[in-house]
């Protein structure tokens, strides 16, 4: 009898099947079911009856609401164009010119990643606000509203645009340039005819990624938006202000549109963009050109200087007694008011980010391992692959809102995690899942697939192979995932704004409350604390990677 059962499951490894099923079930609970409740709420009336598209009709019939759609498209489009152009030029400067201080420029370009978007806006207030430093110097701008949002979103999306273009430009095919040189093509034409077409697919990706980020950002419009309404702030007003959950759900589904579009376009392009880098590609040698380097150096210096000024203004605000009237040094702004969250919120953020990083890294790595290094289980694996890319299309606001619908419902047995750190951690792990998943998959793909076969033949259980072979060999990727989760959890606002509770406020939310309460200096002080821990974690990561490389080289030299 037991023999018969074994035959039935021939070729399927029971422990593997169990682990895979559990992970997929968990993923379904935190992703598919909440999304389902979000969508179903968009089609329900306040009393719970099905109303079809009536909510959407009402939304578009109310000019005060639907104007946000156009506003959001407007600011996203403008900021994306700026950020893509600047990002491309900056990346070009680092990858294709001979300007000095390249690695310095590379790190300063990442500054915006380390602080919440609320803080980009806050920095702008310091610079251009009514009492701003630059305002004092005679720059008068209508900061609050469209202009401020656009500026913030450019800062927010710039690092993404830069990084994507940089990766594309770094793997240049030197042959194209050699050919152009041999035909005597002038530099500017070379730039327009060779370099630009080379990155056209990346450019489309950059456009969608930046557009989606700007489209769904909540932090900047919250601080600096004034009366200029965008979807992300609308959704918040509908849900947190007017408890109009169904209208919130409607706006939530609208927020998904650019991500879904970019997803489709990405898929279409994947099938065409089959890498032009072949084994025959030669690496590019960069020619000397003083005028070119001078122009690009100026650009890089300008961007870097802007970011550093932004950060400097935060320090100025946080470390002076009463900016701009009393500029004497003080640390008193670090003694945060309890009412807006206090120091506790910082520790809460640390706790949440550490938990996210630990559990997220473990989950992502095992998940990627199951997808990459097990065989059989065809249908489950397909479902798993689909789930792993979905979070890419989910804005934080949508995750947060769908979690309210799903986890806050009294019938849900998981209701107890509502209002605890657990739901924040879950939403972060999900929100930032896809990039770590690609990192882990990439690292695992590089490992010999026969490690598993050899281990199996030696009767070594799979978890030991994972723990003692695959994981140590993927350590750099694991650390990168850990860092990514930590830094993003420290700065996120959009996913947690719906989910934090009064007992567990996190630092990024506290900053927005401080700003609302007029404690701008404290908000700046808190921003600095976030920046410091993130930079610290990043440096720690770089240090460990460097030490590991050194050790590997030493081993080789024996």
């Amino acid at each position, binding site marked *: 009898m037991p023999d018969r059962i*074994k*035959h039935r499951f*021939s*070729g399927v*490894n029971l422990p593997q099947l169990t682990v895979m099923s559990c992970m997929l079930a968990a993923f379904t609970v935190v992703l598919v079911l909440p999304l389902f409740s979000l969508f179903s709420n968009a089609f329900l009336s306040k009393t719970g009856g099905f109303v079809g598209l009536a909510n959407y009709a009402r939304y578009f019939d109310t000019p005060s609401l639907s104007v946000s759609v156009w506003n959001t498209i407007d600011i996203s489009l403008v900021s994306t164009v700026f950020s893509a152009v600047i990002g491309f030029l900056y990346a070009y400067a680092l990858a294709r010119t001979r300007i000095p201080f390249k690695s310095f420029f590379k790190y300063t370009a990442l500054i915006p990643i380390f602080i919440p978007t609320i803080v980009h806006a806050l920095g702008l207030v310091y610079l251009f606000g009514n009492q701003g430093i630059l305002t004092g110097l005679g720059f008068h701008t209508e900061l609050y509203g469209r202009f401020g949002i656009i500026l913030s979103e450019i800062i927010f999306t710039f690092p993404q645009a830069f990084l994507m273009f940089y990766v594309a430009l770094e793997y240049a095919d030197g042959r194209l340039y050699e050919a152009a040189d041999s035909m005597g093509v002038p530099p500017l034409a070379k730039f327009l005819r060779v370099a630009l077409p080379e990155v056209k697919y990346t450019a489309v990706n950059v456009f969608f990624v930046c557009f989606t980020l700007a489209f769904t950002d909540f932090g900047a419009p919250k601080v600096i938006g004034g009366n200029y309404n965008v979807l992300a702030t609308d959704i918040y007003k509908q849900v947190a202000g007017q408890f109009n959950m169904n209208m919130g759900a409607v706006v939530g589904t609208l927020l998904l549109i650019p991500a879904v579009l970019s997803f489709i376009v990405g898929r279409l392009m994947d099938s065409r963009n089959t890498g032009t880098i072949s084994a025959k590609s030669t690496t590019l040698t960069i020619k000397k050109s003083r005028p070119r380097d001078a122009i690009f150096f100026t650009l890089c210096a300008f961007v870097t200087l802007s970011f550093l000024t932004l950060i400097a203004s935060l320090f100025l605000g946080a470390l002076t007694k009463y900016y701009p009237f009393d500029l004497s040094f003080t640390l008193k702004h670090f003694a945060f008011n309890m009412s807006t969250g206090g120091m506790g919120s910082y520790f809460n953020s640390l706790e949440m980010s550490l938990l996210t990083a630990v559990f997220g890294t473990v989950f992502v790595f095992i998940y990627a391992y199951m997808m990459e290094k097990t065989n*059989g289980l065809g249908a489950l694996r397909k479902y798993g692959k689909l789930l792993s890319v979905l979070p890419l299309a989910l804005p934080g606001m949508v995750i947060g809102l769908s979690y309210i619908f799903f986890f806050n419902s009294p019938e849900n047995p998981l209701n107890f995690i509502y209002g605890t750190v657990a739901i924040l951690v879950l939403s972060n792990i999900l929100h930032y899942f896809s990039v770590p998943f690609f990192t882990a998959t990439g690292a695992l793909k590089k490992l*010999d697939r*026969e*490690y598993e*076969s*050899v*281990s*199996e*033949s*030696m*009767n*070594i259980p799979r978890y030991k192979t994972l723990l*003692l*072979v695959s994981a*140590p*060999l993927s350590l750099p990727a694991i650390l990168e995932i850990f860092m990514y989760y930590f830094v993003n959890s420290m700065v996120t606002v959009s996913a947690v704004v719906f989910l934090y509770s009064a007992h567990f406020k996190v630092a990024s939310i506290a900053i927005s409350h401080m700003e609302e309460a007029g404690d701008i200096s404290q908000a700046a002080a808190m921003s600095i604390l976030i920046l410091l821990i993130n930079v610290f974690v990043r440096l720690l990561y770089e240090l460990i990677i460097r030490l590991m490389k050194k050790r590997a080289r030493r*081993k*080789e030299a*024996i």
Partner: protein
Amino acid sequence: MGFLEVENITKKFGRQTALDDINVSIERGELVCILGPSGCGKTTLIRIIAGLETADGGRIYMDGRDCTELPASKRNLGIVFQSYALFPNMTVHGNIMFGLRQKKELPRDEANAKALEVLRLVDLLEHKDKYPRQLSGGQQQRTALARAIALSPDYLLLDEPLSALDAKVRVKLRGEIRKIQRALSVTTVMVTHDQEEALTMADRIIVMNNAVVEQIGTPREIYNHPATPFVANFIGMMNFYEREGEVCAIRPENIALADRRDVYDASAKIQSLEFKGPLTRIHGILPGAEEIFVDISSEAVDNLSLRENSMIFLRMPEDNVMKYSEGSLI
């Protein structure tokens, strides 16, 4: 029943048939080579024997027991892959201990003693604390072999174990693998696409082509009596020509030169002469424009002062001519 019995094994990848009704029987202590061109299903067969791949149909018996559903971990076998798959984060010694430490009943010092014993056997004792990337290709190969035999497997499976090495090391390791295999008298299946390797090492050879077994036999049988034109053509050098509706085949070294006044079976015009040390290979053209290769001693070439464009007369002893029905020629 053999110590390892493969019965009617079939395997498809989508529409691609990798194995089509494979039947093989292997005796205890034998070294059997699976030989065949690229893509004919050798790796697939050895992975199914190992339990790393499941067959679509057919059964595997090990020592009389039906093992078809048994996972690799329960089959007690050692495997060496072409890539060796040595764990790069463990030393040579660590690689071998990794498997040995899984045996709960084996105390640590005994496991250690066993590891040192196999390392001595493959002559790697002095390198035991090195990491794989600090070893030469041959040393890595021997490490993989040591790891595979450390658990005293009933079966040793080798998938192109020597193909990543350069020619000299390859020849040396052939002998070593054979010696170790004999010393342990472990039943061994080795995949290769190098016919010389198969001929020199194997007790028996399984020749595969296009997902089917073409012939199973000792190296001598395979060489002297190839069952199909494919085998005849694949192993060694073979001349094919048509006589009375039959496909005839004869090896270059079995053709003798005759005087024009003697009885001869064919005449040919010399195209070129290839000096190969003691032997010279004559490339000739038969009257029907068919090519023919003849190996004769270089001494005879000199004595007869053969050169390009001279005519030669050939005798093809009946015993050495193989006949295949027409149409079986690929």
